């Protein structure tokens, strides 16, 4: 027994890496389809967008980069799909410098390809990247055109039909910030406080805990926390919109729901090894105490 415990406590950590690697790879190759339960914060976000009317405006701010794309991409794509199905007009913008614009372009190209009847400039616009997050929000509170004189293609906003009736953040139904880092906080503590625009946040899992305080204080209408939040949103979308149910079930591409299979397996492995490690540690300590008492 003592030998086995020592083996466990001295186990080369690379075996654990291999186990985690297999634990992630297997569910990708052979999806399990584990159930995803939804939480109140995700449902609140979903229902807020559901309550918008056709023609309302939603701003989706890509405030993240490639380093957190597996968590954030499914959120952005899911919310975009919901808006387009409801004929809500979408304004995409980017405040994150390192790769944010590329991700926004990719997501927009991917989702708009699923809705061929949508028209650029009428149903959606891509404003591109702007430096100085907090200052940009401050300006957008009064004058969106002042903050973004042109869209990503260089067309003046005055020439874009979507902006005929949209001048400030106060007219926007909701700002969705898909965020890593501090930019999400700026949207809540600055844009929301100054213009009153409702905010939905899709933070990375690492950033999610701090946003519960804002959610609790009523400064957020909803939150999608990490990959789990994205998977919850996909489930809500699939339940409400049959075409999306078909899409999420048939696509070979990555979805948060598929990712949660691997998450669950890995969490199980981690919990098992935490238990094994603690039991082995306590066993060895008990054995050492017995040995000391025998001397």
């Amino acid at each position, binding site marked *: 027994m003592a030998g086995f415990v020592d083996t466990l406590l001295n186990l080369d950590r*690379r075996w654990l*890496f291999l186990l*985690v*690697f297999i634990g*992630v*790879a297997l569910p*990708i*190759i052979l999806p399990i389809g584990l159930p995803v339960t939804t939480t109140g914060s995700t449902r609140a976000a979903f229902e807020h967008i559901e309550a918008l009317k056709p023609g309302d405006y939603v701003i989706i701010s890509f405030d993240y980069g490639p*380093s*957190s*794309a*597996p*968590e954030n991409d499914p959120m952005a794509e899911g919310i975009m799909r919901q808006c387009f199905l409801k004929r809500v007009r979408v304004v995409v913008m980017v405040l994150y*410098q*390192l*790769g944010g*614009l590329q991700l926004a372009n990719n997501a927009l190209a991917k989702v708009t390809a699923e809705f061929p009847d949508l028209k650029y400039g009428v149903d959606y616009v891509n404003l*591109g*990247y702007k*430096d100085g997050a*907090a*200052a940009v929000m*401050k300006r957008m509170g009064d004058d969106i055109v002042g903050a973004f004189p042109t869209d990503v293609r260089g067309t003046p906003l005055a020439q874009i039909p979507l902006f005929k009736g949209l001048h400030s953040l106060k007219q926007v139904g909701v700002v969705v910030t898909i965020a890593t880092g501090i930019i999400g906080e*700026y949207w*809540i*503590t*600055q844009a*929301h*406080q100054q213009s009153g625009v409702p905010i939905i946040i899709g933070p*990375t*899992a*690492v950033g*999610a*805990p701090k946003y519960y*305080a*804002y959610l*609790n*204080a*009523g*400064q957020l209408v909803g939150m999608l*926390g*990490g*990959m*789990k939040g994205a998977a919850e949103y996909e489930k809500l979308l699939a339940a409400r919109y049959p075409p999306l149910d078909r899409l999420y079930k048939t696509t*070979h*591409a*990555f979805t948060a729901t*598929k*990712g949660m299979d*691997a*998450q669950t397996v*890995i*969490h199980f492995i*981690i919990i098992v090894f935490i238990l094994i490690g603690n039991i082995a540690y306590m066993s060895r300590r008990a054995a050492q105490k017995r040995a000391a008492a025998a001397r």
Partner: protein
Amino acid sequence: MTPFPDIGTWVAALLTLFALSFLYKDNPLFRFTESLFAGVSLGYYVGTTLNQTLVPNLIKPLTHDFNQNWDLLVPGLLGLLLYMRYVPKTGWVARYALAIYVAYYIGLDFTRRIHGEVLPQLGRAIVPLSHLDGHTIFYSLVFAIGVFSVLIYFFFSKEQDQVTRRIARVGIWFLMVSFGAAFGFTVMGRVALLIGRLNFLILDWIYPLIGIR
């Protein structure tokens, strides 16, 4: 016919494997990938700053319509002053630009913190319990006890006596629970990154390579 992975996918896949190879042990392929990543990131940063910040916000407005945008010379000059620190004799000039930036951010952040964080959070922490239902009262009580005990824990102006020490102990428990939740979320976030990478390797590289889909 499944499309064969293109050159970009091959490069990304191999670099991913090189980066992951560090988990086995340190090796030249990992070092190469690490250096390449650092270099490319810096280059990308410089490129986007130049093309998406300086050119559209400073250079283009100044060159296209100087009369309307001449005031941009002031922030442009302040930006240039920052680089004076590399000239030993005139390095002090950079402090003026730095002082203006610091003042700007203090002004911006001060109101943001007070109106966007402190006041709304305080408002939520002192809701009148008499107006709430039983379920909400429970959560509000837990919330209030948590806020109070953690504040006591971080109150360093007076030495703790027997009572405040016990309250601070409760605060430590609240902090431990929050650290545990944060750690759990962090694990989930890091695993999500690995899931993203393996998804790429399997779905975008290996599957097309062996002709699946």
